[in-house]
């Protein structure tokens, strides 16, 4: 590879063309959230609120799942994903939006949580408005705080290297993120030390805090139903979406930034294996809950599951099983399918949409009798997709999407 190519790649990696992404995201967000606001004034605001909750859970899960992937890479000292890790870390830009969405959900609580109108004595003080929302707010703040600190420390050495090449508002942001970082060997070591604590902390906090969120914002919608494993089911599903979204973004940025030299079939192969593995794990956790509920045969436990698996919700349950487990399983079991970008993208998108439908199936049947699907459902979701793309685009406009240290090292050694 010539020096010219190297400079070009360096330039594209640090100055990603993301204007289109920002504009598209903003347009979708305005349309979708405009529709949401319009629906709130209509005669069935609950329908809009339910979709708001579902998409809050889904996109927060995607953003956090990506950051969890980055934390796992750090904690295990893995290097194979070095060229794509920033696409996952970009989820950090969605976290402030997610926090605002949580506060918005507080406004719509009466349309969502049945235990507000009909208090559930069996759950004691656990399900009261102030305790639930304070607890969840603190959980989200801790989770997002650790995630932001993790990504910030990961960015520092890169930003230090690049700060002379950027100007204006980008320079201001870089200086703010860098704080007093001055690039000495001691400071680089200090960043590494901090990351070696933040990465495992991030993994633990992810599991604990998303369990609280899953219990409070999903399980409490059917307040008499309990499953200890539900939290794990929820956050592992979120991790799966983090991986699949990373897959989509990798294919997108690889073409957009011309990174075919450093994002090779190896990366697709490994990412494909992870998606395959966690599709199986999703089915495993799903089945682990089903088995004990089926054996125990207690009415308050079985109703939740059987309401979803039989009757009017059954078609959705079948589609979820196909999209999240069976299709990705038989699709991604082949090496060729994993390393060919077209088939990889196809199966990864099927899984991504499948988990969205799974979140729909977790929330909706607790609150309404029969499935509804129409413009409001699609519109609010498109609005959230817009917010996610907007956040991702803004991150890409500001920060290097490929670490300059990484490009330099990968091109020097020729191993990636």
């Amino acid at each position, binding site marked *: 590879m010539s020096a010219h190519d190297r400079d070009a790649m360096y330039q594209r990696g640090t100055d990603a063309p993301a204007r289109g992404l920002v504009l598209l995201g903003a347009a979708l967000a305005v349309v979708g959230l405009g529709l949401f606001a319009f629906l709130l004034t209509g005669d069935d605001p609950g329908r809009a609120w339910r979709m708001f909750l579902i998409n809050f859970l889904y996109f927060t899960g995607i953003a956090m799942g990506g950051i969890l992937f980055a934390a796992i890479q750090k904690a295990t000292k893995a290097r194979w994903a070095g060229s794509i890790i920033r696409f996952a870390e970009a989820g950090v830009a969605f976290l402030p939006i997610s926090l605002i969405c949580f506060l918005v959900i507080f406004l719509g609580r009466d349309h969502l949580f049945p235990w507000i109108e009909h208090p559930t004595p069996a759950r004691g003080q656990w399900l009261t408005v102030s305790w639930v929302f304070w607890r969840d707010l603190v959980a989200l703040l801790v989770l997002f705080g650790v995630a932001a600190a993790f990504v910030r420390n990961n960015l520092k050495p890169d930003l230090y290297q690049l700060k002379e090449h950027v100007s204006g508002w980008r320079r201001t942001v870089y200086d703010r993120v860098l704080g007093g970082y001055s690039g000495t060997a001691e400071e680089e070591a200090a960043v590494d030390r901090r990351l070696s604590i933040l990465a495992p902390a991030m993994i633990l906090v992810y599991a604990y805090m998303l369990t609280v969120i899953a219990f409070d914002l999903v399980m409490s919608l059917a307040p008499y139903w309990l499953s200890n494993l539900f939290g794990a089911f929820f956050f592992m599903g979120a991790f799966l979406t983090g991986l699949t979204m990373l897959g989509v973004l990798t294919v997108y940025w690889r073409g957009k930034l011309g990174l075919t030299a450093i994002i090779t079939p190896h990366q697709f192969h490994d990412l494909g294996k992870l998606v395959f593995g966690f599709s199986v794990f999703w089915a495993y956790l799903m089945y682990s809950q089903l088995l004990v509920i089926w*054996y125990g045969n207690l009415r308050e436990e079985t109703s939740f599951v059987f309401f979803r698996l039989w009757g009017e919700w059954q078609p959705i349950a079948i589609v979820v099983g196909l999209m999240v487990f069976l299709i990705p399983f038989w699709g991604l*079991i082949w090496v060729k399918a994993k390393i060919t970008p077209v088939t990889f993208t196809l199966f990864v998108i099927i899984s991504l949409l499948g988990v969205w439908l799974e979140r729909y199936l977790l929330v909706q049947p607790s609150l309404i009798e029969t499935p509804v699907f129409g413009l409001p459902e699609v519109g609010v979701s498109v609005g959230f997709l817009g917010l996610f793309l907007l956040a991702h685009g803004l991150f890409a406009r500001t920060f290097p999407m490929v670490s300059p240290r990484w490009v330099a090292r990968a091109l020097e050694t020729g*191993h990636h």
Partner: protein
Amino acid sequence: MSGHPGGVLGAFRQIDAATDAVRELKEMGYEDFTVYSPVPNHEIELAVGHKVSPVRMWTLLGGLAGVTTGFWMSLWMSYDWPLVVGGKPIGSVIPYVVIAFELTVLFGAIATLAGVVFHSWRTAKPAAFDGRFTDDMIGIFVPCRPDRRNAVKSLMESSGAAEVRLEA
């Protein structure tokens, strides 16, 4: 030591030197050489460029046989000697998934082992060896005719072998 077709045995201290030697050997058209490494290493693996292992097909077929056997066995036994347990249906698929899953793992593992043994036996070729290749050195053995040996020897030496031996 005999039993192998004579050739050249090189011992390498550096991974880069060994991968260079492998690449150059392949360029010269040698295909049936043997590489020893004390630890698994991606660079060497990449340089050697083996075809995808056929053992994975054994695993897949073993797993499919296992899942079929698991469901068939548990359902057949239930209906062959029907007992109502815990008020559940005689043939209950939900708990039998556990049996099917375990047999998938068992049959898959046994088939994999059988595949490894079978293909190792089929493709095994006698080659010279040195105990240091399990310790701190990477070895390459190239079986070749006596008149080619000096060319191979100088190739290995120029790519950085620590020691090159002619094996009768």
